[in-house]
């Protein structure tokens, strides 16, 4: 369990990416003077490549992904053709599902993974000795821990881009994501400032009222909009606290975001019949937003859709005066 996480090599890769990113962001046309010779065609990538703490000697053509988030990233940067197997929870995009593989990221069967003869395995966490076991088989492992900020998410996308030989696409993707998010937030704050007092929200992870604070990845996205999380400060040091019904009702948030629509079948209707919730502002004004569980819990390219959902919901918020 000695994984070299993003630290040193990661920073090196980031530096390389930052240089190209800077150049790419400033102009709409493709960059010309960069410190790394990155071509737009796939066939002439420079290997060996070091990124995300690992070094690959050749372009990986048999990638196994055990992380739904990174599956999405891989397909978004154009490496989908190099993916041979994904885990059971990788349900997006459709091409990943079409692979028909159902590996487990939580109880990995190393032999099964090795059976695909991978040259790169992508995981988001090591359930125990997985990296060690795969290393014993000389299989490279990329670990992308749960991002705690958008910057980390972009970093992981670009690292995967470097490793799979699609750095240019990756960089383009992240800059596009960044631009999209910035634009949406900007437009939204225009309407938000018209409200006056800050808008509070409750983010529901499951139907036992587990939630997130604004230190979490999702919480930070909400912070971009200036929204205030009612769970902040409730439990020091715990970013995934469980709130009681009373606390939620007495905090009376302006908006309720449901991230348990798929897992626990929660809808505005089920929320409005909860004991004591009927008089809450969010329920009365029907400011209950249904999010897709998967989109809300992953830190891949579809984060942009999450941002858009929040923005759309915000636009409908009637002032709670």
């Amino acid at each position, binding site marked *: 369990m*000695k994984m070299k996480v993003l630290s040193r090599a990661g920073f090196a890769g980031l530096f390389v990416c930052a240089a190209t990113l800077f150049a790419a962001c400033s102009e709409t046309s493709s960059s010309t003077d960069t410190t790394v010779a990155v071509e737009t065609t796939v066939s002439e990538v420079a290997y060996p490549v070091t990124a995300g703490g690992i070094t690959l000697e050749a372009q990986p053509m048999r990638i196994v992904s055990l992380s739904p988030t990174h599956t999405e990233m891989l397909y978004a940067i154009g490496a989908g053709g190099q993916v041979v197997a994904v885990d059971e929870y990788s349900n997006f995009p459709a091409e990943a599902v079409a692979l028909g*593989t159902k590996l487990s990221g939580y*109880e990995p069967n190393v*032999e099964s993974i*090795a059976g695909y003869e991978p040259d790169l395995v992508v995981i988001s966490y090591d359930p125990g*000795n997985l990296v060690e*076991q795969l290393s014993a088989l000389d299989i490279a492992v990329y670990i992308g821990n749960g991002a705690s900020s958008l910057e980390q998410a972009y970093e992981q996308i670009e690292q995967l881009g470097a490793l799979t030989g699609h750095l240019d696409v990756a960089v383009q993707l992240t800059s596009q994501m960044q631009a999209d998010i910035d634009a949406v937030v900007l437009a939204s704050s225009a309407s938000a400032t018209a409200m006056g007092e800050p808008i509070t929200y409750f983010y529901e992870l499951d139907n036992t009222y587990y939630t997130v604070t604004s230190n979490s990845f999702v919480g930070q996205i909400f912070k971009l909009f200036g929204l205030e999380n009612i769970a902040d400060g409730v439990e020091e040091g*715990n970013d*995934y606290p469980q709130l009681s019904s009373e606390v939620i009702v007495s905090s009376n948030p302006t908006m309720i975001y449901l991230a348990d629509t798929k897992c626990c079948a929660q809808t505005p209707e089920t929320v409005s019949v909860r004991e004591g919730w009927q008089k809450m502002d969010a329920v009365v004004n029907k400011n209950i937003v249904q999010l897709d569980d998967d989109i809300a819990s992953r830190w891949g390219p579809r984060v942009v859709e999450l941002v858009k959902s929040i923005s759309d919901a915000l636009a409908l918020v009637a002032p709670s005066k």
Partner: protein
Amino acid sequence: MLRANDNFVPRAGTRVAYSTLVSFALLTIAVLVGTMIGPAGPQWWRVPIELINRLPLISVDSGVSDADWNIVMQIRMPRVVLAVLVGAMLSVAGASYQGVFRNPLVDPYLLGVAAGAGLGATLVFTLRRSATENWLIDPLPLAAFAGGLIAVFATYMIGSAFSKARSTATLVLAGIAVTSLTTAVQTFVLQRNNDVVRQVYSWILGRLSSATWGDVRLVLPYVVFSCGILLMHRRLLDVLRVGDDEATALGVNIRRVRLTVVLAATLGTAAAVAVSGLIGFVGIIVPHTVRLIVGSSYRRVLPLSILCGAIFLVLADIPSRVLADPAETPIGVVTAFFGAPFFLILLRVRKNQV
């Protein structure tokens, strides 16, 4: 008159020798089968051929690629070897505890090893997020090991504080108290750190799927040491069968024997739990089955438990990695599946006795 060794070296002696030989043979076969079967890697019938090929001075073409053989040697073999060690350890520890506490339903987790190890593991999983990712030594087995030992130590302290006699009943009660408290603390910690619940649960169910040769090296000295001490005490465990008073009158220092046996069994169990999580039922099923075959004398039950425990876990690990291919079935689930029918059979057999 009867000759000295005619009737008095018990007839069961030949049955024991026979059972031991059969057990050894079965163990060898089980290990071989375990090495042959898996969800990937070389075809099963090629494995023995390649094994022969690897013997010095013999060269046979088995058609197994290096990559495939690597899977067998680096992933499957450590798993099988670990199953041997853990299975043997849990069985002999269970049998020893049954001897010390004179209760056939006791398992090696009685005095709190399981709860303590679980708490240790939970704390590591909780802290790992922030602090320990770059540590040189993997803290997980260390914490589980330490937790298990501390819990049993606490049990002993509480047991002796409340009863000068330090009887077995007191120890059991103290064990229950320690287990309850530790589990409560663990639940509290988990509730506040909801994101590691899945990892902890997975660890608790027990697995051999993450076995590496490093794990084997870690556990081996403890298991060997522990089994050695326990085997040395097998005749004394037989003397304990007539109760504390009579055993004392027969010259046994019961407190010392009890302490030594519990300590050795706990040490080995804690080491096993540290690398493989909490695999249940082995410590009860195997000794009982052995008793059904060779009788209740610990001189026979202990060594045979070692062999049969190894066989049991090696075989149980096969469905564990093949059943839900390409996922793993935690081995604790497999042994639990064996557990229920086992107890039913035991009830049936006992019904025909007194």
